[in-house]
């Protein structure tokens, strides 16, 4: 039978490990901070304001109604994206974005595109079940 002391030691140990792991991640984020343009920040705000994640995915996380947009900037190009943003689609409402708002969203999508590739076909599967990019 685990004694009360052993249980306490275990929970304290796990909590310290969890907090250390958290602090380590906050301090050593995977990417060193890059200064991003004001336009890109505005694009990010718009992305959240219109809740784009409800329908679209980024790195496979998000809604399922529209396509994953992680690398849409390099795949389709800014003109193609701008056309969709201006007119909407059968499913996507027409949000009546201004020229400046479209530019901001494009800046955000460009930043996202440069962060990495979300295509699962580009990964290599190892024998131990891990994956490599």
């Amino acid at each position, binding site marked *: 039978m685990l004694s009360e002391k052993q249980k306490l030691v275990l*929970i304290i140990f796990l909590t310290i490990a969890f907090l250390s792991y958290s602090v380590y991640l906050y301090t050593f*984020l995977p*990417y060193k901070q890059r200064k991003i343009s004001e336009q890109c920040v505005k694009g990010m705000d718009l992305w959240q304001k219109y809740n784009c994640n409800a329908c679209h995915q980024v790195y496979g996380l998000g809604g*399922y109604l529209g*396509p994953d947009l992680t690398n849409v900037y390099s795949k389709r190009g800014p003109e193609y994206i701008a056309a969709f943003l201006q007119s909407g689609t059968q499913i996507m409402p027409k949000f009546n974005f201004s020229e400046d708002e479209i530019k901001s969203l494009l800046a955000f999508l460009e930043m996202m595109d440069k962060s990495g590739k*979300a295509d*699962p076909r580009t*990964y290599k599967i190892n024998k131990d*079940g891990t994956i490599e990019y």
Partner: protein
Amino acid sequence: MEQLNTEKITTPKLFILSGLFLVVFGLLFGIVGAFQYIIPGLFKEYLSFEKVRPLHVSSVIFWIIITAVGGTWTYILEYTQKKIYSSILIKIQLILFVFTFIAILISYFFGVFGGREYWEFPPLLALPIVLGWVLFIINFIKTIKTIKHHPVYVWMWFTGTVFFLFTFLESYLWIFPYFRNNVVNDMTIQWKSYGSMVGSWNMLIYGCSIYLMDKISGNKAYARSNIAFALYFTGLFNLMFNWGHHIYVLPTHNFIKHISYLVSMTELFIIGRIIYKWNSTLSEAKKNFYRSSYRFLAAADVWIFLNLLLAIMMSIPAINLYTHGTHITVAHTMGTTIGINTMLLLAIAYETLSNSCISFEPYKKLMKSGYWIANFSLFIFWISLIIAGILKSKWQMSTEQIPFAEMKEMLKPYFYSFLIAGTVLATGLIMVIYPLVKNQVLCILNTEGKQIEKTEL
């Protein structure tokens, strides 16, 4: 013959009653969302999908949280024989939660979002939730005083409350440019917090379920046994370190992925125990199945097994590569939130709310039918999503991809079965919930409370 509990409705019961209203909203918005998959552009002008999805997701998450809190308070009151620190703090917590949840749902109708993936609402509305949760922790700690010498469910409630607050606050780190300015950094921390947050509310729910099982079986030994604590520490270990499977494809630190992969394999221990205990679980079920609350616990057992198998497979990066971003992830989410969380919370709700004010006899048949309808349709719903996910996965991995819209057309038959099964599932759950809500509303309206014989469902 046992008489009904005609006490004036208590605050913990009001938490659970509010939760029942929220789950009905969640189910209705879920049906609207499923229709929007079949009929593109449905309600596009007034209630488009970017509004419907958070209405559905948040209603269901609020149902889980508020009912888990209500269940926890109900059982703490019983466990401590009403020697709690402050009943006023519980009331304030309820008021803060209910008004904030209503404000959040209204904000979606006006197109005011937080815009984060999964669970989102404007950051300002997170403040009253934080305040309510801080009061919860203060009240809990002052009541329990120490976690030493308590059964496992008290440990689970304690860790659930503390880790929920931590992870909830962590999920708002994005408001600082330091975290937000790179999408990979932002998503790493976001999914760290969400992954652990789910584990935190599960701690509250599972704690209540163990308390309830002890009450039904009359055996208090399990909650103090080594195996109960071994399972608790396995759960806690996973809560802390097994969130990386959400972001295997994100170009983040590799060690996050390796840690998560290794930690998730400890869940095999839980699967092993379920299989080992299968026979005794079955005989226990036969003995207690006449009880409505036990019936929901039994259903949750089956769903835990199915979803844990799926979760373990999805935690292997090589398999996750195929399932990530597909409807298999949705199947897992629905399986856990409906099959596990909702079934367990309904067990708690039935145990807490069913023996008051009106006789359940006329509703016995309705509740039984609703129970079976909900479980069978959930299975079809779950399978439909898995098949749709397999097809999407095939599309994601194919060298010559057809356009996204064509792929969605290919999945349409499974969206139809998902819509039909989902509608039947919602009907079944509403059939189960209706007598409980009616009972409590009558309790509130009839303050004198008639003494009626209790009937066991």
